[in-house]
């Protein structure tokens, strides 16, 4: 592609004690694009997402955001990047002692000078987007798993980030909730947010993503369009897809 990528990962290496997770990962994300990151369990997909915003330190390699190297920034400098590159946690990671409103409004209270009524209006808008209108006063413990994930997403997008990192947003959800989550992600994509979608849910990834990357044994072994994925003759890719189908209930993806 001729355009300059907004996010570039170059030769990323990461290990935990003696377990080397990444052995030279290279990835690029274009403006407004949604990239699906697939791979077996324990291949380091979530670790890669966490490394992008500095929740994990990489051992070697470079991460660039809008042309600026960010992997060597201090914690204070990273705080500004994390407003532009947000992270939607697999578990939601909601503050369990705070209401839905306080969870979503947290970044606004921290980083903006909006009045309370403006914040209320923004929270209400974003709750409408994730189809949870009127749930402001509920506590996280009052919500189902799918609702918690959507509140987590609402919190991640309230600052209107340029990139959203989705860490398995559809994991552990029933088909109706998966549909809700994917619909929210489609809306966000339509609004111009770029995203990296870490998942095992191949049908959702094919439906949503412009490009799919497969992480296998510490390296990216496939990085192309969903169409190319379906027609791939690489035995590692077809075996991965077959395994995922078996593990995730024989969902069709064509």
């Amino acid at each position: 592609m001729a355009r300059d990528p907004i996010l570039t990962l170059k030769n990323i290496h990461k290990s935990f004690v003696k377990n080397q997770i990444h052995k030279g990962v290279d990835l690029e994300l274009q403006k407004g694009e949604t990239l699906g990151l697939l791979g077996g369990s324990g291949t380091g997909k979530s670790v890669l997402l966490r490394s992008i915003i500095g929740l994990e330190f990489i051992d070697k390699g470079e991460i660039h955001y809008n042309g600026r190297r960010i992997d060597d920034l201090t914690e204070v400098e990273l705080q500004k990047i994390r407003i532009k590159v947000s992270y939607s946690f697999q578990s939601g990671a909601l503050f369990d002692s705070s209401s839905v409103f306080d969870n979503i409004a947290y970044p606004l209270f921290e980083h903006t000078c909006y009045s309370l009524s403006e914040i209320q209006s923004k929270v209400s808008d974003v709750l409408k987007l994730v189809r949870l209108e009127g749930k402001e006063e509920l506590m996280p413990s009052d919500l189902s798993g799918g609702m918690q994930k959507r509140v987590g997403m609402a919190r991640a997008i309230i600052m209107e980030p340029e990139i959203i990192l989705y860490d398995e947003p559809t994991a552990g959800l029933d088909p109706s909730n998966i549909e809700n989550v994917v619909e929210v992600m489609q809306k966000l994509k339509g609004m111009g947010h770029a995203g990296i979608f870490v998942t095992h849910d191949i049908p959702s990834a094919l439906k949503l993503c412009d490009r799919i990357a497969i992480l296998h044994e510490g390296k990216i072994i496939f990085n192309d369009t969903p169409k190319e994925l379906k027609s791939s003759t690489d035995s590692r890719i077809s075996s991965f897809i077959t395994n995922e189908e078996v593990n995730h209930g024989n969902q069709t993806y064509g």
Partner: protein
Amino acid sequence: MSPPTHIFTKFKNFLTLSGEISALFYNAIKCSFSRPFYLNRLADQIKNLGVGSISITIVIGLTMGLIMTLNFGYGLKKFGGVLYVPSVVSLSLAREMAPFFTSLIIAGRIGSGIAAEIGAMNVTQQVDAIRALGTSPLRVLVVPRFWASVLSLPLLTTLSFALGILGGLIVCMSEFDMSVGFYFHKVFWTVRPEDYISGLVKSGVFGGIISILACHKALKTRDGTRGVGDTTTWVVVSSSICILITNFFISKLFLVFWGQ
């Protein structure tokens, strides 16, 4: 592992831990004097850690005064020294017993509270969420708890001291037929401002120790609920030991500066 290697490893771990705790303390102090300030969170923590500890402090202070006066009273009575009971009790309370016992008991309450709360937040990725949302766990979680403990413990110590004096008065009046006027005359004649101030400074230092130890360990918590349990136990035991050791050195320091 051979014994020398084992001792070396333990010593290295101890130095690492001391370094990390010192760094957290330094950063907490540094962050306290730069924006953003979380005064509402500080107020919440003072309410939670300080106001929430008032009832237990009332029990500690009052019973400490009652028991000490009873024991000193009957002990000194054998030698005809009952008149010295208010002086002995008040001086002990101001310098040692009120700050030390209040901090030791409160260490269990606020140390375990901080450790369990932040530890649970850590294992459920809420601390990561604070970082991912562009804020600092140090500023949001550590600094308010540190200052809340440092400010609350001297106030709780004052309450404990006052109730200890009241407990002493009750026993002196009921057991040794002492008048209120005589009792307070002896108390005010004995306790100098520096005795009381030394107790306040000690309790402030103990508050800082409890909160920094608790926050440090809690932010390192791993292994789910079991990890939270281990963290809580470690914090209560370690902060109690640190209070015991630090108490000796601060007492010695005050004796050197202000005399006996």
